[in-house]
């Protein structure tokens, strides 16, 4: 068995069945991870590195073959031959917002209404979700809790995968608003043969006009000093015009990408991110000229059209990255599959991203930059939070992704989860025979 069960593991076995492990205790002593292959997350790698962190913050990252450190009062952990990574970031996520897809009572990802800028996803983020430990144990240590539905869905927040409650777990509150762009093509489901028919969306222009009015009102409202009456919806949009918040636009078609970005810039939005971007390769020049980053929808999808190259979804991150566009990967709302996010980066590397360190950026530093959390996380650099993990091998490949240690803000996290508990229970059953 390659998933090494640490001491923490057997301790966890003593905890009552069916519960997540308790959040980890704050870091009390400096820790040095010695001799591992340190993947910085910015394209660099140190084959024999030392990662030193204290009070939840990285205090040094150095080449162990050339630099000597004073390790008095430091807990030294030998990770030679193993790999150290910054925690992976999963944007566009409903982890924590839904538990069991088919059970309505466990789903809190969408509010009624069309224009919901005031809706905040972090409120519903359930730190006790049993999904969270399972994604954490593959190296995904952050997820962006993201609302769905309507035209403006609400605001997202970046959450850590450990904490007693959402206030504890939040890394960045209300990082951006979510806009579902009225699509150029609409899709209709045909009951006769269960096919999908794509045609020009006749309601698009009216929908865009309504958005224009809302954004104009919001922009004007943002200039008021003491608005009375207070409008919660417009209040929630203020950050778009000051640059405090991103506007995440869900758009896939090439024309939707161009039109929506032009709309947002025209409306005075400071920071725009395209989410989805299935046809982003068509709009490369535009995206580059306008300096718009892209979070791609899940790569593990089929090409959008019959005649499209069979591997286009796999090659897309490479195509965009090569053109100099800032790209992040997501599992696009597929909460339980989020643990496979690292393997998407691996796939990107197998299909055209220059090398594995470049591919790694797709789930670390690139995403951190896009989400505006790169001052805190995304790379293993001095001054950043010590949210990182140790894997027995290459974490982008499921063959070697075996997570042995996880630190969130320097706190040692218990690696137990529901799946391991059930595994142990039934392994024991058969071994008793």
């Amino acid at each position: 068995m390659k998933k090494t069960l640490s001491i923490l593991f057997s301790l966890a076995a003593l905890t009552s069945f069916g519960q997540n492990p308790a959040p980890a205790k704050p870091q009390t002593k400096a820790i040095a991870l010695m001799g591992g292959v340190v993947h910085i997350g910015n394209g660099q790698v140190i084959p024999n590195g030392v990662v030193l962190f204290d009070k939840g913050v990285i205090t040094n990252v150095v080449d162990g073959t050339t630099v000597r450190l004073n390790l008095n009062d430091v807990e030294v952990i030998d990770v030679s031959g193993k790999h150290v990574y910054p925690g992976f970031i999963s944007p566009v996520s409903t982890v924590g917002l839904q538990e069991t897809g088919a059970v309505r009572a466990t789903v809190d990802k969408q509010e009624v209404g069309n224009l919901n800028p005031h809706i905040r996803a972090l409120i519903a983020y359930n730190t006790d979700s049993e999904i969270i430990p399972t994604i954490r144990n593959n190296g995904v240590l952050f997820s962006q809790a993201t609302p769905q539905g309507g035209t403006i869905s609400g605001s997202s927040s970046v959450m850590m995968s450990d904490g007693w409650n959402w206030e504890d777990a939040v890394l960045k509150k209300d990082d951006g608003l979510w806009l579902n762009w009225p699509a150029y093509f609409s899709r209709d489901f045909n009951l006769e043969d269960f096919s999908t028919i794509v045609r020009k969306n006749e309601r698009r222009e009216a929908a865009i006009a309504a958005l224009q009015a809302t954004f104009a009102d919001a922009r004007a409202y943002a200039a008021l000093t003491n608005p009375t009456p207070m409008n919660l919806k417009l209040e929630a949009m203020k950050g778009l015009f000051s640059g405090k918040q991103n506007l995440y636009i869900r758009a896939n078609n090439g024309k939707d990408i161009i039109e929506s970005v032009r709309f947002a810039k025209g409306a005075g939005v400071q920071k725009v991110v395209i989410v989805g971007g299935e046809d982003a390769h068509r709009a490369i020049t535009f995206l580059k000229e306008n300096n718009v980053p892209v979070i791609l929808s899940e790569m593990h999808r089929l090409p959008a059209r019959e005649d499209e190259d069979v591997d286009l979804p796999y090659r897309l991150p490479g195509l965009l990255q090569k053109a100099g566009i800032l790209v992040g990967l997501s599992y696009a709302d597929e909460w339980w599959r989020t643990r496979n996010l690292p393997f998407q980066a691996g796939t990107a590397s197998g299909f055209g991203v220059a090398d594995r360190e470049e591919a790694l950026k797709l789930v670390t530093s690139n995403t951190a930059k896009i989400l505006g959390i790169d001052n805190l996380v995304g790379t293993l650099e001095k001054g950043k939070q010590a949210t990182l993990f140790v894997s027995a091998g290459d974490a982008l490949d499921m063959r070697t992704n075996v997570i042995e240690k996880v630190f969130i803000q320097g706190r040692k996290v218990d690696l137990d989860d529901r799946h391991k508990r059930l595994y142990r229970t039934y392994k024991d059953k058969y071994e008793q025979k």
Partner: protein
Amino acid sequence: MIKHFLTGLLTVSLAYGSLAQTTFPQNGVYDERPGLYAFTNATIVVDPQTTLQNATLLIRNGRIEAVGTNVSVPAGTVIADLKGKRIYPALIDIDSDYGMPEVTRGPGGGGRGAGAPQYESNKKGPYYWNQAIQPENEAGIIFKANAAKADELRKLGFGAVLVHPHDGIARGTGALVTLADDRENTLVLKPNATAHFSFSKGTSTQQYPNSMMGVVALLRQAMYDADWYKRAGSKEQANMSLDALNRIRSLPTIFEANDKLGIMRADKIGDEFGVQYIVRSTGDEYQMIDEVRKTGASLIVPLNFPQPYDVEDPWDADNVSLAELKHWEMAPSNAGRLAAANIPFAFTTAGLRNKTDFWPNLRKAIENGLPEQKALEALTTIPAKLIHAEDMLGSLQKGRVANFIITSGNLFSADNVIYESWTQGKQYIVTTKAPVDLRGSWALTIGDRSNLKLNITGKTPDKLDYQIVADTARITPKVAASGELISMQVQLNRRQPGTTRLTGYRTSPTEFKGDGEMPNGQIVQWSAVRTGDAPASTTATSTTATSSTSAMASTTATTPASSTATLLYPFVGMGNAQKPKAESVLIRNATVWTNEKDGVLSGADVLVTDGKISKVGKGLTAPAGVKEVDGTGKHLTNGIIDEHSHIALLSINEGGQSSSAEVRMSDVINPEDINIYRQLAGGVTASQLLHGSANSIGGQSALVKLKWGESPEGMLIKGADGFIKFALGENVKQSNYPNPNVLTRFPQSRMGVEQVYMDHFTRAKEYAKGWEVYNKLSAKEKATAMPPRRDIELDALAEILAAKRFITCHSYVQSEINMLLKVADSLGFKVNTFTHILEGYKLADKMAKHGVGGSSFADWWAYKMEVHDAIPYNAALMHRQGVVVSINSDDAEMARRLNQEAAKTVEYGGVSEEDAWKMVTLNPAKLLHLDTRLGSIRPGKDADLVLWNAHPLSIYARPEITMIEGATYFSLKDEDAKRDALHAERSRIIQKMLAAKASGASTVRPTFRRARMWHCEDIEGVMAEGEEEKAESK
């Protein structure tokens, strides 16, 4: 009344009966006429092979009396001189809904979210249990003539049509009727001429069947029930439907298919019951013409060619697939290709957007390679022959019904004019024939203005253009010339505006005269006298209609691109111009994953000949002519086998009943699904195509190899064991339906699921016993014994009991898995495989004891309640208890990464890499009983091989070559060339389409149909969980 070609008789088109006697009383004085007409000096096309010049056609009382060059015309005959004109047999359409009640579909039968589902027939009376089986309907009874619609068809040249109600799977009989205007008693030539079937359940609101394979099964069962009814059943019950099914067995039978695959599907049903169907096809037969020809079926072919797409915007145009572009280009060549392949066919006007498209489209077909003679056959002799009416219609021979048309010239010429349609000996004017040819130059005098010239021109004498030349001015008057009379309005003087109005009559073929009124009210006299031919330039075209000396050109002179355009196999952008062929190949110096005792060999060679692996070893020598592939640094493995797949299918669930053991997925294989190619690119070579999980007992699987470009039949693995899908849990008890209040289908709980099995297998046992007893009887005893009723559902279940069919059971929760094992043990059968089996780890010991395999997902969970306890360690735990474990996809996307999914069993639970690899190759082969032929690299096994660029369990691995039985179906290095060819072909056709649009063809917006991606969760009309949102966000 217009006299037209008949001279010497004032009125001709009053009704008269062709019947010598009538059963109807007459209100007024009887008006029976001799009905004797002769058409002389005509070019008569007696049939497509025979044309007579200067011949006479004699008809009496609606029948042809004589035709020939030496016909003596008896006294009392009305004679029409047709010098320069032609006579053709009237055309026949044998797929018509003329005179049939309109088929209106109600709000479908209770899909998910709709009203309460209807499980039993709403049709009252002693009929079949299913509303879609209505062979008792008779077109001859419900037929009602419709003068306006008859006129529309006569104008196109048609004289008779075969009509039937287009509703249901068994639709009843068709009636052959003429398009004359008379009592139905006269019009119906043959009331029960044909029998009709289709793949559409039509207006039936009953739940079953709600899938294509269910349609096939229902029809097959009904046919077997009819056999039984004849032999024994009528003693037990009266059933008008089964009685009718037996009665119509001897009639020519027409099966309406919905696409080219339907032709093969229909023919297979016909073969089972010893019937050769005539198939109403859809115009795409050219795409699979070899397979179509092999069926031996005659076809009824529409002329509904696709419109060009609106492709100005290159991004929008991407939504139109190459297959759609090519079909637009090639559809007009369909008939020509059918003719060249010697497939007999008739044309129909059915399916045309407008009936008036008939002639332009038919001419387009001729321009695209269809010989005119074949076109005429397809509209006359062949349809007549197909419905056994060649003694009545289709040619102009003595004794036939007097259905013919009079034309200006060659029927197929663009400028041909159909003057008259004679239907059952009755005259119908199609184009009003001018009494004389007015074309020419006329000297016009109006009052004191005598220096005017009137030029009359036109392609035929019947459609004329008028122009007045006054000094140098050219004036276009408004003219109405009708028979002997003429009226004209003209603005003679531009300086004094006003209209001069003239009215007049013909005094001779060369003179008109009459009165007129000038703009100022002054009354004037006017006249026109013919002085000679009109200027040559405007009359030249008038002779082309009759310029061809032979009645028909035997071949077309030009061959446009559409008839030479290349096909693709399959007819999809990613299809191949040639079907891949097996080659002899030596793969050298690769890391070979044998799945045998030898394990993983490094630096090994594998020789492939005749589609098999012939040698495995080091330093093999390549026999002459063998292609060598360098495997250095690469990995060679078996092709991946997906135990649970729903790609390449037209339909997934027959959820209309709790058991649908009778349905066969082999009836709905779609060889054009692009996912076949995408999965080849992921190293998959064989799949079990499974029924869905909507009901406890699903349908029979199809085991296929992903032979991209082959027919459904060609994809099936020959000699494979039969399998069947079962399902447990939330889907079969309909837990996740949005409106639980309308659910009435048994079962709605796991308790009921057990009883479904107990009930069905108990019945199957009794059924098998019944046949066993009957089959043991002597011939003498059989003669008096009641034979059991053949039941194709119980047949499948009896096969399971006899270990001739094997179960793959969709399952999640341990309690229900345990239940099925107990049911199987108690009734004496085995479960072959549990699929999904996400709680298999909880009772892997019991599974091992029963000998059942587990085919699972690597890491799926959390999407519904019954996967709450699903863990990614499941495969490892089952594996260690001795269960044969495979990792499957159930998903078109994931199937192309099954190597990665197998690798997860290494991550979760520490399965060895070799064992992990077997979970997507050898183990599924074992579960499908194909491990003697597939699943390992050993001499003698099928050469279904994949050459990977890296360790096959690694995320960085991708197939460079995927081979099935020695033929290369995917080659990474050829992908660029394939892509370039695809783009070049797209551009070529798009340019052509732009030109077509510029020349005025109407276009359609590029809509874009994306075929359904199936998962076994999918129930009719329902999107899988989360799919709505995905669709919205795109």
